[in-house]
């Protein structure tokens, strides 16, 4: 089974994120770049599927040069090879262009499963897996808390507000996973050493057969007009419980007309 896992380098989850004053894109230099947390679950799921059914896992990422660290991280967890789409023209790409680039990088390589995390912790749009499924014309099996594969049949549990839907489809398919699906492994020392020797194919937009003019900020189909930090909230009242803490909250809620 050939499995691709798409990963994104994002600012550290715990860091304050800002937009760049220059062009209103995410200021990636302001924080450490890490493998998007939800993508760790995607890598783990891809590895587990390959271990259970045989096959290999290819990491695919679009991002600036430093995103190579993120590809390497996934390789150190156990993925076999990487494809890193890196091109200056990609800066500021919207989801439309990103999905086109990923679809072009994935298309025609015979992947049976393409696994994503269900969202990135920076943009949080949750649209890329669906867009890639749309572009490739293959099954979309997303927001999975469980994945099982039997031959060409793929069954997932799609998380919903009321619980989950059991959804089936056939390979090739796009899968996205939520965090409760597994426990991502930590790269072992051996894994880290082995990752350094694994092949990573660095490709440009032109290599994918796309025009540079169709990607990047200038080609984006949505644009930021302006942005501002949310004004800090005025300090509230904090009291220490002296046996009447609950009553004091009740009095506050009454004053605010909640009760």
């Amino acid at each position: 089974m050939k499995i691709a896992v798409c990963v994104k380098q994002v600012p550290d989850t715990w860091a304050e994120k800002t937009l760049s004053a220059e062009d209103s894109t995410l200021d990636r230099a302001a924080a450490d770049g890490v493998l998007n947390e939800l993508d760790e679950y995607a890598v783990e799921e891809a590895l587990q599927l390959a271990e259970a059914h045989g096959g290999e896992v290819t990491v695919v990422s679009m991002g600036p040069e430093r995103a190579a660290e993120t590809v390497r991280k996934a390789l150190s967890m156990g993925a076999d090879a990487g494809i890193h789409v890196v091109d200056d023209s990609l800066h500021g790409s919207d989801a439309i262009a990103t999905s086109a680039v990923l679809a072009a990088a994935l298309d025609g390589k015979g992947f049976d499963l393409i696994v994503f995390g269900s969202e990135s912790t920076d943009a949080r749009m949750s649209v890329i897996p669906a867009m890639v499924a749309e572009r490739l014309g293959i099954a979309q099996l997303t927001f999975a808390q469980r994945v099982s594969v039997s031959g060409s049949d793929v069954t997932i549990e799609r998380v919903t507000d009321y619980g989950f839907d059991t959804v089936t489809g056939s390979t090739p398919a796009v899968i996205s996973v939520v965090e409760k699906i597994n426990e991502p492994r930590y790269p072992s020392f051996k894994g880290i050493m082995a990752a350094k020797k694994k092949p990573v194919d660095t490709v440009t937009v032109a290599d994918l057969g796309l025009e540079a003019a169709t990607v990047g900020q200038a080609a984006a189909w949505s644009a930021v007009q302006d942005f501002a930090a949310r004004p800090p909230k005025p300090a509230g009242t904090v009291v220490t419980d002296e046996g009447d803490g609950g009553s004091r909250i009740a009095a506050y809620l009454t004053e605010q007309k909640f009760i």
Partner: protein
Amino acid sequence: MTTVLVLAERDSSNGTAKKTTLELLTLARRLGEPQVVWFGDQGSEAASVLGEYGASAVHVVGGQDMADHPVVPIVDVLQALVAELDATAVLVPSSADGKEAAGRLAVRIGSGVITDAVDISESGVATQSVFGGSTVVHSTVTHGIGIYTVRPNSVAPEPAPTTCGVIEVDSTVSEAAKSARVVERTVAGKGGRPELTEAAVVVSGGRGVGGSEGFEVIEKLADSLGAAVGASRAATDAGWYPHQYQVGQTGKTVSPQLYIANGISGAIQHRAGMQTSKVVVVVNKDAEAPLFELADFGVVGDLFEVVPQLTDEIDSRSN
């Protein structure tokens, strides 16, 4: 006047229009004349309430076979109606289905897409609250028609009564839609409470709750207020409360009128999911808990003393 399509969100328990649908209609009226796309039964029954909020028509997509395939049938119908009605914008709820449908529609018809709008102006400028609510962004779609997903609780629904016609949509399941099929729906959540992202009041618990039994006091307070229950990542990771109730950067984003956080320290992970709540009440033993910075009212104390007392007070006031 131009047509704006609104994808209805239907309450899966009773088939009526969810409040988010009325919120979407309120925003859609600023952009043009709203018409609703309704999947499932009871579309004609909903017409009166949709009309009350300004919808001139509801397009009802019936048939179990359409409901048995995730996301793609929504895209197929929206695409056809955008073309037929020459719609200038599409508003969908910021649910998993809504966002995915918006994304696929954008690819298919060649339009930009803006997710998680909390407001949309008459000229189509969307307001987004990003990075866990720390930054407010104004954006526009610059290509094609405006496709927006809108967060629940962003605006107060305002009536604007008109007559809403009912149009049955003649639909068949496309080949693309057939590629995935829902074979079973499982209700695994804790029923009887409002949906987390739509609730006006959310009561949540974190590490300080100490275990799954501890969530009983959280649930009791929530029920006294008719609130939804949320949990921090520490609590869901520990298995104390089901995952789908997680509020935070890797969970749900909520924006209720009132958010009561109990035993939650307030790491960025959690704040990212609740920072835009209108009023925040915090109960924590640790006076240094960072969440107190966001509190309109906070109590430094043991939640197992404070919360039951609060629940009793609310119950006695409502009796």
